């Protein structure tokens, strides 16, 4: 199939034969093996670049599959009458995001230009010079796209069961194309948070998850709670999701994807990916254990739904510090995030912000906590990470301070842009379906198709 490949292989083999003949050649005259060595060095660099491409692509593919995970978690945690709707939203935010991130998002996030402390301004439609020694732009775009789509899709969960499909489409394109890339630029694209403040977010606790979570917060707040979520006395009533098996599978798929999300953020094939996979996994375990135990203690039963959210809370929390902390610290971070998530879910329930899947708590709150944990638990001995020691390891409060600034800056950015975006949509097309449609379910009213039939 690949003819270009064949050339390389043939060249390689010639090399081998040349090399095997070398001793004799040497004896008779020279200049045969000398260019060989240069070629070999080139080939070595080429192979490393290929291996980097391969790894980052595979990691991106795993992250891509998180779309299915989100779809199943969100559909499972909501009612059957809205399952078609949430699945359609999950499909559409990814496909619309693919296009808008290609057209503008990637440029805003990773472009350079005059205003490059704040926003990137070149590389629209992937029109960018390929540095022949760097990762292919294509794989960079792909890996970053699946991250962007993650941020977008988080929002749909918190706004589930009552948002107009058309409005969803609109805000989703905008988030992936504009809001997410700009704050992402600050931290990963050479913007002010990284360059001036020294904030560190290895794989996106803040860049991806908090952004999704805070925008979800604004959205859920502006929408108001689902009909029936609060009784006449304002007491929250649970509205159980229609399928825990779907939610469980979705969670396992997300967990799987996280092994691309975090270790893949090395953006190169290195042995560090092993350590990162371990911290990622153990934090998830900590989050789940803590959530189940807390639910058991507080509410009387080991609640699967909170257990699943707990694993996700741990995963979100470890996303920023995964490369900078020890497994023991990772376990602690997971436990902290599991507990914080349980508290946060109860808190948002009480203040009447109705988040059917817990997206604000899992992604917003635990994303912020995880980012701060870099400032607490980082150890400079882990080379792939921030390279400094956090507060608990003798590095002082400096790093923590940077992290605080980063968390607050992104929070502010999301609140402001979120209010503007959702406010505009509310004015122009409306955010929420009418009550009758909500009661009947969005599947029939918005899509004309029940999720389940006989």
């Amino acid at each position, binding site marked *: 199939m690949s003819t270009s490949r064949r050339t390389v292989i043939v060249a390689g083999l010639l090399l081998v034969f040349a090399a095997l003949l070398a001793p004799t050649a040497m004896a008779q005259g020279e200049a045969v093996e000398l260019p060989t060595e240069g070629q070999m060095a080139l080939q070595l660099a080429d192979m490393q670049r290929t291996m980097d491409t391969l790894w980052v692509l595979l990691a991106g593919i795993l992250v891509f599959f998180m779309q299915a995970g989100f779809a199943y978690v969100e559909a499972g945690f909501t009612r059957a009458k809205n399952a078609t709707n949430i699945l359609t939203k999950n499909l559409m935010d990814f496909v619309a995001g693919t296009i808008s991130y290609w057209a503008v998002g990637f440029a805003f996030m990773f472009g350079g230009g005059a205003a490059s402390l704040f926003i990137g301004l070149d590389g629209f439609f992937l029109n960018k010079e390929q540095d022949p020694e760097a990762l292919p732009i294509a794989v960079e775009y792909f890996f970053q796209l699946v991250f962007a789509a993650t941020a977008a899709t988080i929002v749909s969960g918190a706004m589930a069961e009552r948002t107009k499909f058309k409005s969803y489409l609109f805000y989703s394109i905008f988030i992936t194309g504009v809001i997410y890339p700009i704050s992402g630029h600050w931290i990963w694209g050479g913007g002010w948070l990284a360059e001036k403040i020294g904030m560190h977010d290895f794989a996106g606790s803040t860049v991806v998850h908090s952004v999704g979570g805070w925008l979800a917060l604004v959205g859920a707040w502006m929408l108001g709670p689902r009909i029936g979520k609060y009784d006449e006395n304002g007491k*929250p*009533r*649970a*509205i*159980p*999701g229609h399928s825990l098996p779907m939610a469980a599978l979705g969670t396992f798929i997300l967990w799987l994807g996280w092994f691309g999300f975090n270790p893949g953020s090395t953006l190169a094939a290195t042995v560090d990916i092993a350590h990162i996979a371990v911290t990622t996994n153990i934090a998830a375990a900590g989050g789940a254990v803590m959530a189940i135990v807390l*639910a058991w203690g*507080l*509410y*009387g*039963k080991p*609640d699967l*739904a*909170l257990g699943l*959210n707990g694993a996700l809370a741990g995963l979100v929390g470890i996303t920023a510090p995964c490369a900078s902390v020890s497994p023991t610290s990772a376990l602690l971070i997971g436990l902290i995030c599991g507990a914080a998530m*349980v508290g946060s*879910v*109860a808190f948002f*329930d009480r203040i009447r912000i109705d988040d059917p899947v*817990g997206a604000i708590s899992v992604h917003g709150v635990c994303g912020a906590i995880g980012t701060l944990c870099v400032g607490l638990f980082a150890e400079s001995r882990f080379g792939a990470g921030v390279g400094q020691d956090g507060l608990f390891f003798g590095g002082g409060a400096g790093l923590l301070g940077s992290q605080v600034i980063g968390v607050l800056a992104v929070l502010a950015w999301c609140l402001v842009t979120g209010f503007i975006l959702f406010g505009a949509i509310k004015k122009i097309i409306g955010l929420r379906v009418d009550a009758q449609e909500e009661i009947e379910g969005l599947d029939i009213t918005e899509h004309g198709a029940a999720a389940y039939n006989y």
Partner: protein
Amino acid sequence: MTRVEAIIRPSKLDAVREALDQAGITGMSATEIRGAGRQKGTTERYRGSEYTINLLPKMKIDTVVRDEQVETAIEAITGAAQTGEVGDGKIFLIPVADTVRIRTGERGEDAL
């Protein structure tokens, strides 16, 4: 002819079906329903918040019998479905004017 309509606990379905069978009553229909009554709804927790299930899962068994079989049916059902705890269910007796067997067109008690 009378229709004996029994609302029972779902877990008693097999026992009741067998008890009726042994009492010589083989024709019957079962429907999944949800019921409210003296048995209190349960309050469950989901992600920390409470919700009350007011309508509990029940099973309805309908059997149309000759009038002389009514008491036999009641005994069979009661015997098999009783646990003595609130929520055991009810039996309603409803007069049936006529019955048709679709397969043959037979009418009346012969059609049962």
